[in-house]
């Protein structure tokens, strides 16, 4: 399953780039993109607007949006000092601090991480400076999430954050970040791997049948409405009879000269799909 990972900074990305063996995409200059096989990682830059832009850039043209995973991975602050630095958390609610708008990731996937709510701020947050109702804070998630769900199914969008500080100026330095990310890579990979297997939204018409329908639509120059109707009847035929659409092969060879002929043939085909 194709995976698109969005991180804010290179320090967050580097251990993942190495782990997946990703190579920099030379075609992407302004927004750094790293790829290998079906895995793509984008370094967005800090802040929700940059995250939204990078997410849109990465997902707008994916081949199979229904079967693509999008993951926002990065560092976050945590107000609860009991939670250890370096813990990977699964975000179940994202609040945009500026708009007070909430987003709720779909949590179908069973995982072993602790869950938390998160608020995205426009600036760095220090203890006592903001009233917080969330467990975690970051600067990207509320940009990433609505952008990702605009392109791919809700249940395929994940936000995984690593606790880097307790809202104090004392933060992890780069080697420490790397060490903490490397320490949680296994947990990260387990989530990604399980998410890839949690297949949703299967396509009703596969392979050869899809090709037959496409041929037929082109050969008969069907209208958009007729294409929808044909698909509907075809799905009905496939699931009622547990058969492929081979009965439509002969019609793919036919040509039509005008609308009347097309409509007549369309009626014949739909009748065949309904009555058999």
């Amino acid at each position: 399953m194709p995976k698109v990972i969005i991180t804010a900074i290179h320090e967050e990305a580097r251990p993942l780039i190495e782990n997946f063996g990703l190579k920099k995409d030379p075609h992407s200059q302004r927004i750094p993109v790293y790829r290998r096989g079906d895995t793509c990682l984008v370094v967005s830059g800090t802040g929700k607007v940059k995250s939204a832009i990078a997410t849109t850039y990465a997902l707008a043209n994916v081949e199979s949006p229904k079967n693509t995973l999008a993951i926002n991975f990065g560092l976050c602050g945590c107000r609860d000092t009991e939670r250890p630095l370096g813990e990977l958390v699964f975000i179940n609610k994202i609040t945009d601090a500026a708009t007070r708008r909430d987003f709720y990731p779909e949590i179908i996937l069973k995982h072993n991480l602790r869950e938390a709510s998160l608020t995205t701020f426009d600036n760095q947050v220090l203890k006592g400076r903001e009233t917080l109702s969330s467990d975690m804070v970051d600067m990207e998630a509320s940009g990433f999430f609505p952008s990702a769900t605009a392109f791919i199914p809700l249940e395929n969008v994940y936000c995984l954050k690593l606790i880097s500080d307790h809202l104090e100026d004392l933060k992890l330095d780069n080697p420490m970040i790397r060490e903490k990310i490397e320490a949680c890579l296994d947990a990260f990979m387990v989530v990604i791997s399980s998410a890839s297997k949690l297949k949703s939204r299967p396509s009703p018409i596969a392979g050869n049948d899809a090709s037959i329908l496409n041929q037929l639509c082109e050969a008969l120059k069907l209208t958009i409405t007729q294409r929808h109707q044909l698909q509907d009847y075809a799905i009905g035929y496939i699931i009622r009879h547990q058969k492929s659409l081979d009965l439509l092969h002969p019609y793919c060879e036919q040509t039509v000269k005008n609308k009347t002929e097309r409509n007549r043939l369309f009626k014949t085909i739909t009748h065949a799909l309904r009555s058999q």
Partner: protein
Amino acid sequence: MHYGHSNFSHLYIERAAEKYPMTEHLLSRFPKAERICIDNYKDVFARPGQHFQTQKRSIKLILAVKKDNLIYRGSNNAQDFGYSNFHYNALILNCVYNCDYCYLQGMYPSANIVVFVNTEAYFSATGKAIDQRADPATPLYLAISYDTDLLALESLVPYCREWIEYSRRKDNLLIEIRTKSANYRALSDLPPHNQVVLAWSLSPESVVSRYEINTPPLERRLESAAQAINDGWSVRLCFDPVLLIPNWRESYRQLIERTFEKLPAEKVRDISIGIFRMNAEYLKRIKKQRADSDILYFPYESNDRVVSPYQKEKDEMNTEISTLLEEYVDKEKIAVWM
């Protein structure tokens, strides 16, 4: 390997719902569930981009306060059994079952279950509706298990019990609790009450196993209904929806025979027959989301934005099933949805 969470792994709790006893009860039932605080249940329930069947893999519970529309006038797609003051309410949205033909898939954007916890407000609205009912000569007929299956959830959310007790305190109220569950035991300690109708939806076993996912087998539903009759409850049988499956005559003949082998026909309050029907827009939405059930793709006709088998087939099915039922019960007891 199963990659999905179990049902009710997460509780979404409206701030306004936090202090209600039902909320506290449900929190105590799921101590390990993740709790997520929300402002309005619609923020979760009506999120864009949800996929009903994907959510059925791991249903979440949303606890909310219903602020308006605490009681509705009866829908044209439901039977009123001759009661002019037909109303229904929505104590819970959605159902633990997952029937292929269920209209809820097209009506709601989410498969998650919303439990409205402000029961007293519902009682108050019902009291007003009783007082203001259009026909004072007949009681307010209220279906409380309408867009859900309350009895299936009774062990978790004991609303049937609360409403039965409420009906004992209120004259001029008749409530119907419709179910596919076999959970009568959850009510069996209560003395029967003549202002309550327990209604079981029955389908041939072949339909149950193929199209009524997660529901109890026919035999267990019949055992539950038999026990309720035996205890003195007023029991309705609903052959609804009747599906136009290839061997429908034989399947429904066997169903009716088996029903009256298990239940004393003379003690059944009444019977309803309803051929499959659905709002055309709902069916369209469902078909956009799923293509795994032939029942959604049978050739149907659409009349006045309602989809159902062709009239000729409907007439044939209604006549056949009514005739079979009339061997056991008086014609007057059978309500046919035309």
